[in-house]
């Protein structure tokens, strides 16, 4: 018990780093994902820039790049690779940049599916009532899209809790690294078991929040 009390502060401080990466990634990547998905579904982004490529093609390339390469590679690229060409990030900022760009690509695809499943008549009804496209998107379309995408977003959120452990590769002391150090130092499994329990608690907490959001949206169909 004494041992647990001794190592718990370092594990909890690691968990705090994990939580910070997790929360900031969500705060940045979800709105970015919505914007990108609007770009994917809008007719406006079909126009070619300098007669070479359209904004939609740029977004599609970005999503292909982010989903087609490992997140670990992206982390290493941002922190160790970009300084070679003069773009330097602090460790924590590099993690946020890599995670946000990666997750925004996944969220964009999820939201694209959501936007595409809204019947055209919803847009037409709103337009016949005189609503402009921003009012339509905000009051009519986004709430319906959110209801559709919540289960898929939930999957990604749970993945993000676990993926956040990848930050160890750029030297950030997160929950997993704290446990790993303690296990190696004290030659005991206990730190890793505690790490497991903390991850499970974090994902259980996320699941409860997601269920509550789903329940909120279940009042209408």
């Amino acid at each position: 018990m004494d041992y647990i009390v001794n190592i718990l502060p370092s594990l909890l401080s690691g968990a705090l780093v994990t939580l910070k990466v997790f929360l900031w990634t969500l705060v940045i990547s979800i709105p970015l994902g919505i914007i990108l998905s609007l770009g994917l579904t809008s007719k406006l982004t079909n126009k070619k820039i300098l007669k070479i490529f359209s904004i939609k093609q740029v977004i599609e390339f970005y999503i292909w790049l982010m989903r087609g390469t490992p997140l670990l590679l992206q982390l290493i690229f941002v922190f160790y690779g970009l300084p070679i060409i003069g773009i330097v990030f602090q460790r924590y900022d590099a993690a946020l940049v890599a995670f946000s760009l990666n997750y925004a690509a996944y969220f964009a695809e999820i939201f694209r599916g959501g936007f595409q499943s809204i019947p055209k008549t919803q847009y037409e009804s709103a337009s016949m009532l005189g609503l402009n496209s921003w009012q339509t998107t905000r009051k009519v379309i986004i709430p319906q899209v959110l209801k559709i995408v919540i289960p898929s977003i939930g999957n990604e959120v749970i993945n993000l809790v676990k993926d956040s452990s990848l930050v160890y590769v750029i030297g950030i002391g997160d929950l997993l690294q704290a446990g790993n150090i303690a296990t190696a130092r004290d030659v005991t499994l206990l730190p890793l078991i505690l790490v497991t329990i903390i991850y499970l608690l974090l994902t259980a907490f996320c699941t409860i929040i997601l269920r509550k959001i789903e329940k909120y949206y279940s009042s209408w169909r």
Partner: protein
Amino acid sequence: MFRALNISKKFNEKQIISNFNLEVPDNKILCIVGPSGAGKSTLLRCLTGLESTDSGEFYLNDKKFDPTTANNKKSTIGLVSQDFGLFPNLTVMENIILAPQLVLKLSKEEALGKAQKLIKTLNLSGKEQLYPYQLSGGQKQRVAIVRTLAMNPKIICYDEPTSALDPKLSEEVGKILNKLKSNNIMQIVVTHDMDFAKQVADRIITVEPLS
């Protein structure tokens, strides 16, 4: 008086409407009937501005206007579509007051007051807090009509208003349309239901597919 003159519309080189004319006097109901594929729905989409026309002119009280921009910041033309187009994420009352608040800039109290009057007129009292999925087909349709009326349109178009209703409810909808005739509103109904057309129409136009 609403007039559409020489309306033509092509889709993929196929002529759907050719030099079509129509006229609807104030407080009158015009029914457009015809078989499937005759271009009734396309015509309605052109009249409501959801589709642009290849040629033709529109006049409202002898003033030329463009249906594709007529509903910017107001609602000159209202549409009650075949699937009613209610917003599933909003309650009946929210569906009705959304546009009056955002577009006509009414205060919430003003919008609620207006909505309550219309709800009473169309026998929807007690349904204000329900969501569209909790309503029957006939109730959804009446909500769609109230929502359109709340925007004070000059013209209301209906796309197959009885397609989802049984004969008794169709008759009820007919009564509602007749009731609205006294409000200086011009109504255009696209339908394949000849009985309904005979029940409500002041004038019936038949459209046939172009060969």
